[in-house]
């Protein structure tokens, strides 16, 4: 089977993010970047499925030349080929989904796996838009299932299982208060949650092989997608700094303050 996975370039969560004083964005100097952690989980899941069912993993990223770093990372993990949508400048979730739709129509994968959201702007919309526009089934927030309530499914079950006939995929989703299991007809769109798997390191032989794996370049105009954002960010601001705590002399004062000031009881 053919699986398309995404590899968005995002700010390294270890970096210290600072908002520009004028609120137009974040300070880019000195920032490190890496693959969106949710996308890395998607790459890992794609590789595991292909190891079981055969086929190939195609990784796609949208951005300037610098996203080659994330594409090469996915290739070094084991992805077979890469698609680079060469685009710089602002892009909203509809722009991303529109570009991915064209890549999907071109690559014709059986399954698309994306991170449920990217850790930079936390939109959590691209997978859903993509499934809708393709007219495919979607299963969001695929997560690792430790156990199920029903007796015959008590044992650990993989969160993402492709049916023996390669026509369906069963996905365990993380939902409020528990897990839900859904089955989709293939082709389908799946988005990954944090606990789905533990991504592998890129291996040294993988890194050396990645060098010679192909990266195909596409441009939005060539795909016939208008990526003019319908959404603009008007202002960014840092969350208010946490105030220092206080010490209370006794329990009575604590209860009083929780009631009157914090208003939590």
């Amino acid at each position, binding site marked *: 089977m053919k699986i398309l996975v995404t590899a968005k370039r995002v700010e390294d969560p*270890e970096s*210290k993010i600072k908002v520009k004083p004028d609120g137009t964005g974040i300070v880019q100097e000195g920032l490190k970047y*890496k693959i969106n952690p949710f996308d890395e989980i998607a790459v890992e899941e794609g590789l595991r499925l292909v190891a079981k069912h055969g086929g190939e993993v195609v990784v796609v990223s949208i951005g300037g030349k*610098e996203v080659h*770093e994330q594409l*090469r*990372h996915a290739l*070094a993990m084991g992805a077979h080929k890469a698609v680079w949508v060469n685009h710089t400048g602002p892009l909203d979730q509809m722009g991303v989904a529109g570009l991915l739709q064209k890549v999907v129509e071109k690559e014709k994968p059986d399954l698309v796996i994306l991170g449920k959201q990217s850790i930079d702007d936390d939109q959590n919309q691209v997978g859903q838009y993509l499934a809708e526009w393709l007219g495919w089934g979607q299963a969001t927030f695929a997560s690792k299932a430790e156990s199920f309530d029903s007796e015959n499914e008590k044992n650990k079950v993989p969160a993402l299982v492709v049916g023996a006939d390669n026509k369906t995929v069963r996905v365990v989703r993380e939902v409020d208060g528990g897990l839900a299991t859904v089955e989709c007809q293939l082709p389908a769109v799946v988005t990954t949650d944090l606990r789905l798997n533990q991504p592998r*390191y*890129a*291996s*040294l*032989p993988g*890194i*050396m092989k*990645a*060098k010679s794996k192909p990266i195909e370049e596409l441009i939005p105009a060539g795909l016939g997608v208008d990526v003019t954002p319908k959404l603009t960010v008007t202002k960014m601001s840092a969350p208010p700094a946490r105030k220092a705590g206080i010490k209370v002399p006794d329990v009575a004062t604590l209860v009083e303050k929780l009631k009157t000031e914090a208003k939590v009881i």
Partner: protein
Amino acid sequence: MLSGYGVYQEEHQAFRRMVREVIAKELRPFAREWEAAGEFPRSLFTRFGELGFFGLKYPEAYGGTNAGELYEAVLLEELGRCGSGGVAAGLGAQFTIATGPIHLYGTDEQKRRFLAPAIRGQKIGALGITEPDAGSDVAGIQTTARRDGTHYVVNGAKTYITNGVRADFVVLAVKTDPSAGQRGLSLLIVEKGTPGFTVAKKLDKLGWRASDTAELLFEDCRVPAENLLGEPGQGFAQILGNFQWERLSLALGALGAAEEVLETTIEYVKQRRAFGQTVSAFQVVRHRLAEMATDLEAARQLTYHALRLHVGGQYAIAQTSMAKKVATEMCCRITDQALQLHGGAGYMKEFDIERHWRDARLGPIGGGTSEIMNEIIAKQLGL
């Protein structure tokens, strides 16, 4: 994107990112714990073996990847940043000094017996040169190996041996002909458990506290003659041959450690406040950090120059010695200034700076002191 400084290619930098991830997850969080324990888990050797880190410059036939010395250089720099000089030293000794001579001078049989399991991390190796009365003065070594039929009988003592306590084998510098000076030197592989080979003691140290450093004793220790590397009397050239990479490895590790300390210090001064402003707002602090960064960059360029010459196949003995001296001394200066910039916090065990400061001090001593480096350089100048 990480700059390659004209030395490293994109794939080396990809490898660097992978090594960083491994170190961030599996080494750095435990640096303090291992420092307190005075050792790191033996399982790290097998873990590094699995990751292929011990076989970067060794042939596939013995389980290596034959990726090349530049990959190993990346690993050495990043190990320098792991937060523990001792861990870096113990793991580093495995792929630089312990297995290097076996790879360069061993027979196929010796490589299968010692190199291959060391690449897998299943056997720990050590290099035994220094003695109570001889170190860089290699020709003055007192440990003897007298031929007796199919065996050598080894007598003598070694000291300051990294990985010595846990080593499964030691590549030992011995005099096979005590009357022949440096021409009487040989390298002999001695296995753990050979009768007459004992670990006299584990040494207590200022820094590198997570690494095991031992004094080894050999009393009528009978070692099979097939464990000799090359021919008797080739030891001097063999030791000198591997000294180049050992010295480069110390320079590269010093770059990594200095880089880590500089970054930590920059973060610290941006947060620490005094007299109503961040410490980083004081010009004296800003300029001090600018000078530290410049110092690091200068040492880096000299080290990379020596590295380029070395991987290009040159026996760059002067440049390598210069780089070793300059980079390790730079690291001492940087850690010392970083400690100062941390003020009282720098002197406390709660912060990592004091450990870096102690670890860095070994640099201008181990693998040939700065004074020995100067002697080598002077000799190259025709003095």
